[in-house]
């Protein structure tokens, strides 16, 4: 298969940035999207040109490092899939693909398709944890957790922090990410003691990081590679109201 790639190239945060066109030739339909980029990069490197920079690591859809806008879709056209788990057979031979980095004020561009998502770390630092020092724990079975709650918590905890929700949202809102962590911890009895503080602090940090407001368009849910539901956002809103009333 052959593809024409329009790729956003930008040397660093201060550079202007522009689209450049590359040809990906003789790509196997069995190759993954990132392997297709490897082939293009390998050719660039052989010519002494700098390869297209993109974040990636595990290449099995769980680390959350990879991610880019592929012709207007976060992580490409396939639902519930990370960029690394996207295969070229999902595209038409001869197709032109536009590759852009996640765009959001809170995700400053680092280079080409690489952005700085450390705002997510700061949000977790604000309260995305349960305060239990090592050694403090009681027996794991001392505190039963209803199975349904454990399952809902796991649904939310599946978030890989890739930032597709922010990238896909017209407002660059991080509510899906924040709500997933708040939900995960609020649904478990272990997380109950810090529920109020956690919710208030995480939302505050989210706002300060420069993410937009949620307008419930649902684009985040549609693009989330782990299918995290926006019902978590409703839960965050409820948790927030509760926290405001209790604090």
């Amino acid at each position: 298969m052959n593809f024409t790639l329009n790729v956003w190239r930008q040397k660093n945060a201060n550079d202007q940035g522009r689209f450049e066109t590359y040809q990906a030739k003789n790509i196997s339909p069995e190759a993954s999207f990132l392997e297709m980029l490897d082939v293009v990069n390998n050719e660039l490197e052989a010519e002494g040109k700098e390869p297209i920079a993109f974040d990636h690591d595990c290449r099995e859809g769980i680390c959350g490092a990879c991610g880019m806008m592929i012709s207007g879709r976060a992580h490409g056209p396939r639902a519930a899939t990370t960029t690394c788990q996207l295969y070229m057979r999902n595209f038409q031979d001869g197709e032109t693909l536009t590759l852009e980095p996640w765009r959001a004020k809170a995700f400053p561009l680092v280079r080409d398709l690489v952005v700085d998502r450390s705002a997510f770390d700061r949000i977790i630092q604000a309260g995305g944890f349960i305060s239990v020092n090592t050694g403090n724990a009681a027996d794991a079975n001392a505190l039963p957790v209803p199975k349904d709650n454990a399952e809902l918590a796991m649904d939310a905890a599946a978030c890989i922090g890739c930032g597709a929700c922010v990238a896909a949202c017209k407002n660059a809102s991080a509510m899906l990410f924040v709500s997933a962590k708040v939900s995960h911890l609020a649904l478990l009895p272990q997380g109950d003691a810090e529920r109020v503080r956690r919710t208030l602090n995480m939302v505050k940090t989210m706002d300060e990081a420069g993410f937009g407001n949620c307008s419930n368009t649902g684009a985040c849910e549609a693009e989330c590679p782990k299918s995290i539901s926006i019902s978590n956002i409703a839960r965050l809103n409820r948790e927030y109201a509760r926290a405001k009333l209790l604090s």
Partner: protein
Amino acid sequence: MELKSNCPGGPIEKRWEDYKFHMKLVNPANKRKYTIIVVGTGLAGASAAATLGELGYNVLSFCYQDSPRRAHSIAAQGGINAAKNYQNDGDSAYRLFYDTVKGGEWRARESNVYRLAEISVNIIDQCAAQGVPFAREYGGLLANRSFGGALVSRTFYARGQTGQQLLLGAYQAMMRQVTAGKVKVFSRHEMLDLVVADGAARGIVTRDMVSGKIERFAGDAVLLCTGGYGNLYYLSTNAKGCNVTSIWRAYKHGACMANPCYTQIHPTCIPVSGDYQSKLTLMSESLRNDGRVWVPKTAGDKRAANEIPDAERDYYLERKYPTYGNLAPRDIASRAAKEQCDAGRGVGPGGKGVYLDFRDALKAQGQKKLEEKYKELFEMYHNITNEDGYKQPMRIYPAVHYTMGGLWVDYNLMSSVPGCFVLGEANFSDHGANRLGASALMQGLADGYFIIPYTLGHYLASSKHPKVDANHAAFKDAEDAVTGKLKKLLAIKGKRTVDSFHKELGLLMWEHCGMARTEKSLTELLQKIPALREEFWKNLNVPGSDADLNQALERAGRVADFLEFGELTARDALERKESCGGHFRVEYQTEEGECKRDDDNFCHVAAWEYKGEDQKPVRNVEPLEFKYVELGVRSYK
């Protein structure tokens, strides 16, 4: 060099407890005077950073990813073992200890393994308290499942994402310490050298991968938690960034490298589909519970799988291992698959694959039942290969998955360089020659949460090393060496790309030092690697500069180290004239083709000591004693 394991004596159940009591403690007020450098943020690194922060130490944490949450521990699927005996099925710390020593073919220290088994129960408590959403029963209590190599149900899990959930738990605990001001995270920082000054590890030199800046960090101890070196083989189930650089740098400063030849090859991976392949994907071993493994009886049979009648199929695992059949352990199943493919009976592109067929299970149980058990795996297989595992057999092939070898450490997890501790997969300590399923997560967390806090304190309290800051000459030397090497890589301006060298090295390793090794293949390899290395330094082309984000340069540095490390691995494999676990020497096998250990001559740890650029490394030996688990034979007939 004499390798002192510092293992305590006495009854095995009491050893760790007694040892803990006799260790020196650091006064709480003094802890904040110490700076600890932790490299890597996987299960071992994150749990260590969090716990040391909680204790009051100042922790500097480094990772090459953009966030500590992305370390490759996150990709572990199956679960984590713990001797909780919640199922009342006869489990105990002793049984977990026994299974682990046996599973590792008697090539691990009894004291270490017992401690691991003992601590396993605390790990589950800690993780549950952190909010790790483990699978639960309707009564709200924790669920367990069974896993390979054990007759009890002791594996705790969070769907197919146990590694992710445990890592996020440790990451969150670490982020809490960031807020508390005790941990400082340096992401997108790659450690490029260890600094040893006045006889102890005192810091590291890193490269800021965004700005290209080379920085010095001084501390009172350095913890290397940088994972395994499976990417030596280019294709593995490891993340693309996994590398040997940090432990290789430590090796060059005097830390011994133990048993690098022990490589775990996992039998149920999705086969390679072409030369563009960048990594291999693992599918849970649990598939072998219902799938039957076979190849066509005739070599070169090109018919579609479903057109081959039963009489012309060879269900070779069932034939060779009637008792365990398709459930034969990882190393055995892997070797058997290779044997079939080498004989030309492999299926799929390039003949590198065997069938894993669910036809009979579908007939007996129906698709619905199978979907309940394996829906996600079938979907993943379908997504990657575009083949429907319900309609035609899956194709699988073994792939490099885990490395049992690593830096040699004593009972305190300290390498042969004082003050340089090694945790998790990066060390060699607990799995012997073969690791059992669901034990890697257990070891990483045991090291970070429950062992290092004690042993590090003991080191600091008893160490007489004066404070050293980053202006010390050793830092300058290390920085110069790092800068020099980067400049050198950029200056070659040859014709070949980094990946082409890495792929060639990987293939060499796989062919000569993969699932089966011979004296001949290893001797050849020992000639081919230096030649390839020489070409690398003459004909490599790294575009760009070292003053900004340069992913080609990052890869080049890692491959340069793999090119040296591969040689040591081959050397280790050549010297270990026996077969055990992840190291199969064709010359040393039983009549049935199984591993033939040589306990008289090789019941020891081989720890390689660096002697200089053009010197042969020295093979030091730490003898292993087995008082509790008698040396025996691992049989799965």
